[in-house]
């Protein structure tokens, strides 16, 4: 072996044959391998910081703060304190089918251990919302400063096209308002009044719902979405709406 490596004339031997474990070890350090040299004794790498995990959905954070929620799904116990808090805070009528947030139940009878899991859902405040695109009167819109999908109930004609367009079943017709109603991350009831979280996140006793700012690297939401130890996903990614509600487990 030639021990005097000519550093100026090294050839990249290609990353195709780098073992998966090696790649993962580097990724955990926040680095992606870009080349190997000198028969595998040297690596070149770049920071993965900007191409963060779940990057298809979280690539850009155009709002400041960029409101987001992470659900630690495995911790949900369906105590429904979140739903009660939402109803009380946002005056959601107690009638069948009316909710701004709810909890789905998935039974897993064949699983080892737990036999069910609960999945909290709410409006995903998508970056590319379908509901606002299909609304004929622009009664629902993506707010330019907060990024929250809001309702202007005066403009709503109750055609329910937004309900059809929403991949998350996050809208209902409010008989009292005579308009469609939906989660707005408690914008009018809490955030605009200086509160730092939503009523549901505030009420959760199990630390399932974590509300925060996805554009702030110090924020818990940012840290969970960008780590690579645990999987992070969104619901119905195929809808292509780039949702701002993320899920994780374990």
């Amino acid at each position, binding site marked *: 072996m030639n021990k005097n490596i000519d550093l100026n004339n090294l050839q990249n031997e290609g990353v195709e044959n780098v073992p998966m474990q090696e790649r993962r070890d580097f990724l955990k350090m926040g680095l992606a391998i870009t080349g190997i040299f000198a028969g595998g004794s040297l690596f070149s790498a770049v920071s993965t910081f900007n191409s963060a995990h779940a990057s298809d959905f979280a690539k850009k954070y155009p709002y400041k703060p960029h409101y987001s929620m992470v659900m630690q799904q*495995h*911790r*949900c*116990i*369906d*105590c*429904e*304190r979140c739903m009660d808090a939402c109803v009380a805070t946002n005056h959601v009528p107690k009638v*069948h*089918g009316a*909710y701004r947030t*709810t*909890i789905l*139940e998935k039974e897993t009878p064949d699983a080892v*251990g*737990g*036999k*069910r*899991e*609960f999945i909290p859902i709410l409006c995903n405040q998508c970056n590319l919302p379908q509901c606002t695109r299909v609304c004929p009167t622009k009664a629902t819109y993506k707010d330019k400063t907060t990024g929250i999908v809001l309702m202007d109930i005066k403009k709503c004609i109750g055609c329910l096209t937004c309900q059809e367009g929403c991949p998350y*079943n996050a809208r*209902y017709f409010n008989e009292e308002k005579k308009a469609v109603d939906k989660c707005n991350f408690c914008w009018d009831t809490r955030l605009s009044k200086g509160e730092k979280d939503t009523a549901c996140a505030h009420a959760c*006793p*199990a630390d399932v719902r974590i509300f925060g700012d996805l554009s702030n690297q110090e924020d818990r939401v940012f840290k969970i979405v960008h780590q690579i130890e645990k999987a992070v996903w969104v619901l119905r990614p195929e809808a292509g709406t780039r949702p701002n509600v993320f899920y994780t487990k374990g």
Partner: protein
Amino acid sequence: MTIRSLCITAVAALSLAAGVAVAASYPEAPIVYDKPVKGVVFSHKTHVEKGLACDMCHNRLFEQQAKKAQENKDFVMESLYQGKYCGACHNGSLAFASNTRCATCHIGVKGEERSKTGGKTEKKGH
């Protein structure tokens, strides 16, 4: 020490002998706690069928009156982690640890409604 272990053996033997009688007299319907959070199930059947005797929980960990424990302020998960209530067994060695498999006991509001009606809950929002 010897006397104590003898006593324990005697108690265990008695419990086993009384097993059949005990099994016939436990409440059949699951108990569903609603405080401090709604929808937490305890099934006598599940536990008796695993061979547990009454005196393993009564009245040291739980009084016989159903849901009496939830009147206590310390009837919270933190107490379980310290070995109180369900945590006496659900500690990861005797039975699965209290800080795992949350939804096994936490059947939720939906589970609570199901246990009342004996069937499926009406699905909300669909």
